[in-house]
């Protein structure tokens, strides 16, 4: 087995897969429920003893349920913690070595329950493609089972009690990760972000800092958690995601109609760089990957599997690169390894694409 195959075997997580509704544009769906226990201060203020007791109670409540494994953060080396962050299985906050916390992961990594992050419990479910209701049902099911065993903090007026007032009520944050290259190329995203804000939802770049959308990957999510039922929140978000998909598809058709040669050139140029470059910084890699993904979706590049691109968006991040390299890398060296990883993975993807 080559080094890259070995690496992928341990690194791929199901949400990166090619399955799922609208999977050409929707990369993944994530649902998160925030819950807290009565009788313990919230993680921002609690004592080490309270942290341990909460952790103990949550772990005990899930004992014997499915194939969950309970992983205390302090037992995880820093680089693997970072890799869990890059796979979106834990938040950067939970990875903070100064704070106590643990994650309870399902065998297929579609469920991750963060214990003692900002709230005592955060149930997170990630599915590939657009599957808001299904992801919520799974999270809700786990929530019901936890509730049977644990004294949840709930208020008749304000609902589920959370550390931050932006989560109070349902404690539900649902988000859909979308690849919107055509809307970005045609400079439509600023206008869309404004329209989305008016609907009580938000759109932002999934990778990178602030509003910068690295690789044209955006995340739309509900902002409000109070005053609406879970189902209404999910349906509104699904409607919005579907509208964005429709607009992206329209923008893609327009590109193909009005500037086919420019589009084709852009896609193949990026493909050429990804398959030949020896040094690739994060920004450039993300943007070239976005072009190639668009090329695959539109049938311009025929024989690369689109899941390769999902994976590479994750694996080109620092922690995964270092796992791939098997050593700590300086920033300059990372760019070299990033280029190598992308070259090898696309090469592999082409082979399997042809065989299929």
């Amino acid at each position, binding site marked *: 087995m080559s080094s890259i195959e070995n690496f992928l075997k341990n690194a791929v997580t199901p949400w990166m897969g090619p399955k799922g509704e609208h999977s050409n544009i929707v990369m993944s769906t994530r649902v998160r429920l925030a819950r807290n226990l009565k009788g313990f201060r*919230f993680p921002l203020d609690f004592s080490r003893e309270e942290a341990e007791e909460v952790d103990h109670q949550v772990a005990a409540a899930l004992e014997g349920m499915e194939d969950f494994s309970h992983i205390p953060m302090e037992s995880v080396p820093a680089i693997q913690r970072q890799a869990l962050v890059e796979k979106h299985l834990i938040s950067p906050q939970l990875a903070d070595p100064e704070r106590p916390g643990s994650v309870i992961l399902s065998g297929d990594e579609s469920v991750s329950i963060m214990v003692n992050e900002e709230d005592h419990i955060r149930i997170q479910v990630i599915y590939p493609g657009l599957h808001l209701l299904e992801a919520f049902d799974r999270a809700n099911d786990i929530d019901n089972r936890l509730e049977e065993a644990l004294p949840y903090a709930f208020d008749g007026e304000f609902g589920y009690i959370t550390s931050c007032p932006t989560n109070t*009520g349902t404690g539900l944050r649902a988000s859909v990760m979308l690849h919107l290259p055509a809307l970005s190329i045609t400079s439509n995203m600023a206008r869309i972000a404004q329209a989305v804000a008016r609907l009580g939802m938000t759109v932002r770049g999934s990778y990178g800092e602030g509003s910068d959308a690295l690789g044209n990957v955006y995340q739309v999510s509900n902002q409000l958690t109070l005053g609406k039922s879970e189902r209404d929140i999910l349906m509104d978000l699904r409607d919005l995601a579907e509208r964005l998909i429709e607009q992206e598809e329209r923008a893609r058709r327009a590109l193909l109609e009005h500037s086919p040669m420019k589009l084709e050139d852009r896609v193949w140029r990026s493909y050429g760089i990804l398959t030949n470059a020896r040094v690739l910084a994060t920004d450039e890699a993300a943007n070239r990957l976005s072009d190639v993904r668009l090329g695959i979706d539109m049938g311009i590049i025929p024989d690369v599997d689109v899941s390769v691109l999902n994976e590479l968006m994750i694996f080109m991040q620092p922690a995964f690169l270092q796992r791939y390299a098997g050593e700590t890398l300086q920033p300059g060296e990372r760019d070299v390894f990033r280029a190598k990883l992308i070259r090898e993975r696309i090469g592999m993807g082409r082979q399997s694409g042809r065989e299929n």
Partner: protein
Amino acid sequence: MICDNCNERPASVVVTQSKNGKTEERHLCDVCAAHFQPFQGDFGGDPLGIQQFLQNWFAGPGAFQKTAQPQVSNGPECPNCGLTFRRFIERGKFGCAECYNAFRKELPEVFNKVQGGHTRHEGKVPASYSGRIAAERKIKDLRRQMKEAINQEEFEQAAKLRDEVRELERGLEEGGGQDVVD
């Protein structure tokens, strides 16, 4: 100072927004501030902005002038964790579940700001909680019946009702509630 948005009403909220490395300050009045969704793109889409959005809570319209710094109280204090309402506003995070009770009077205004005008939960209710409500209602009803029984000197019946109430109350103390209610 006049509101940057409507240019009519006096500004009472300062919003600091960082964009592309530049920090921008906007002075808004109550009305415009409520309409702007601080966590939805208009102010950069950063949920951490809550501290900034709430931190002028205790400051009146005149607070931005150096001369007018009125002495303001800390507001209510949570008896469980000791967090004051003022401190809550400053950091934008509660200390424990009891804080919600301690700040119950102030919270609708907070939620009005950060939850787009919504102040009441409309979603899922834990089964144990609905069981608790039902148990509490039933206790109230049994007590009323008990009183009636005593008034009519049906003491045997009253004693039976009293035992039922006790059992329900014990169930509530144990944290459940759903098991003792039909």
